[in-house]
């Protein structure tokens, strides 16, 4: 097995220390950082995402895989920056005002990172301004919002309204998700996209690029 395959395999098993070691090994072998990222870490995360979607793995497996990815990224990130590797896009993501649920949102973050996005995670209980200011400051073209409570869903609409007021309609795309959220709701509030799980959230974000 090549070292890149080994990285992917161990990432899928959630073996963070092993992944970290293997990433160093791959770099020592002279493999380009971008290749380690794409064919090692991202490759593994993609498989986990696909399996999660099919209910072959569950939340704990995704969390430990993501932790392993982060361990690898700790080594890789400085090399990527030095090599001038650009993220494929920037996403501002947060859980909306009044809502403290973040497990699903964190999974979406991890899958997005795993797919090569730069993820600006603004956390939980985020007011509309926080989404918009971060997007403006960091020049992100995608805002992703998570809500798990029927009572906090309307806050998503608030973000979209503020965005429109700021003249960013169509320039910054919005995507929404979380247990009570539906495609219908996305249509109703004028969000650019909805997806039911973390793996398809990646496809959705890519469709905005």
């Amino acid at each position, binding site marked *: 097995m090549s070292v890149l395959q080994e990285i992917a395999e161990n990432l899928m098993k*959630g073996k963070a220390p092993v992944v970290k070691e293997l990433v160093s090994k791959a770099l020592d072998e002279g493999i380009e950082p971008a290749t380690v990222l794409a064919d090692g870490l991202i490759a593994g995360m993609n498989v986990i995402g696909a399996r999660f979607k099919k*209910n072959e*793995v*569950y*939340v*704990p*497996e995704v*969390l*430990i895989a993501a*932790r392993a990815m982060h361990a690898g990224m700790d080594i890789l990130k400085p090399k990527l920056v030095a090599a001038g590797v650009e993220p494929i896009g920037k996403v501002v993501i947060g859980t909306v005002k009044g809502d403290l649920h*973040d*497990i*699903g949102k*964190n999974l979406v973050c991890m899958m997005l990172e795993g797919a090569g996005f730069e993820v600006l995670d603004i956390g939980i209980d985020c007011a509309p301004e926080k989404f918009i200011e971060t997007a403006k400051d960091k020049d992100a073209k995608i805002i992703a919002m998570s809500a798990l409570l*029927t*009572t906090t869903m309307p806050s998503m609409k608030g973000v979209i309204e503020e965005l429109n007021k700021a003249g960013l309609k169509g320039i910054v795309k919005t995507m929404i998700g979380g*247990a*009570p959220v539906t495609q219908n709701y996305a249509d109703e509030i004028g969000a650019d996209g909805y997806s*039911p*799980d973390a793996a398809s959230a990646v496809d959705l974000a890519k469709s905005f690029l």
Partner: protein
Amino acid sequence: MTSKERFLKALNHQKPDRPPFNFWMDRPLMQKYENEIGHRHWRVTHFGADVIETFPLINFSGGTDANAWDAHVEIKSWDEIDNLSLPDPNNPKVYDLIKKDLDEFPDTAVILDMITPWGHVTTLRSYENVYMDMYDEPERFHAASRKFTDILKVVTERACEMGITALYLMEDLADRNGLTISPPMIEEFVLPYAAELSEIAQKHNIPVMFHSDGNVGDLLDMLTNIGVQAVNPMQPHLNNASEFKKKHGDKLAVYGGLDNCYIIPDGTPEEVREHVLDVFNVIGKPDGALIFSTHDIPEYTPKENVEALISTIKNKCFY
């Protein structure tokens, strides 16, 4: 027929005179009704609901607030959990509410809400950590579950002796997409401990029910294996009712079945009526194994819809 008889008939797949019912709302809305009507069990006294969910006044994070899902827990490390001073299940105060409910409502089904040992560990460790703990710290997870189970067994035994109508185990193991943790993990970390509580109830001939949100299709066989007789809430947009009835209807009754997301809050009273009859026809018939309940219906649900819901159950659902 008393509410309790009605409830037990439904659980045992013997048609009662009409389906028994209960319902749940967002807490602020429930508080509003309670304030207006002036009784903590206003659903029973005012609307004729058949079920009271009672609970032990015990809490593993200290205090006596029993609802682990509402507990605000500061404890995060395993060391703290291992050294936690545990509540005494022999403290008579633990049973005050159960006793009060049973004494005050002898003809109503008084069921015991019981968060599983897994849920107690989860509350203490927090959901974020617990999902990874099952990989990282399985021994400590089991050790804590063991301690909590031993306490909850005493509580269950005592409550059964006091005469609860059913034991109602509760754990959220699924979300809209299906199970949140894998079947082998559920079999290892959740069910063995839940089964110990279930066995106690069964020994007393007291039926066992189980609550999990979400799409629970893949959970049902595991639940029947530990003696569960009814499942809640079976949200209709996440679970196909006729498929359920075909595959599991001979073994499981439903406590729930009603929508809480679309028709009940947003529909017309007429649509609510149709929905109730629909659920009744698909799940309630032919054997009567349906105790109507809603998962939390939102605060903005119109009063007319609540009234349409209840009057249809009481006046239009005939076997």
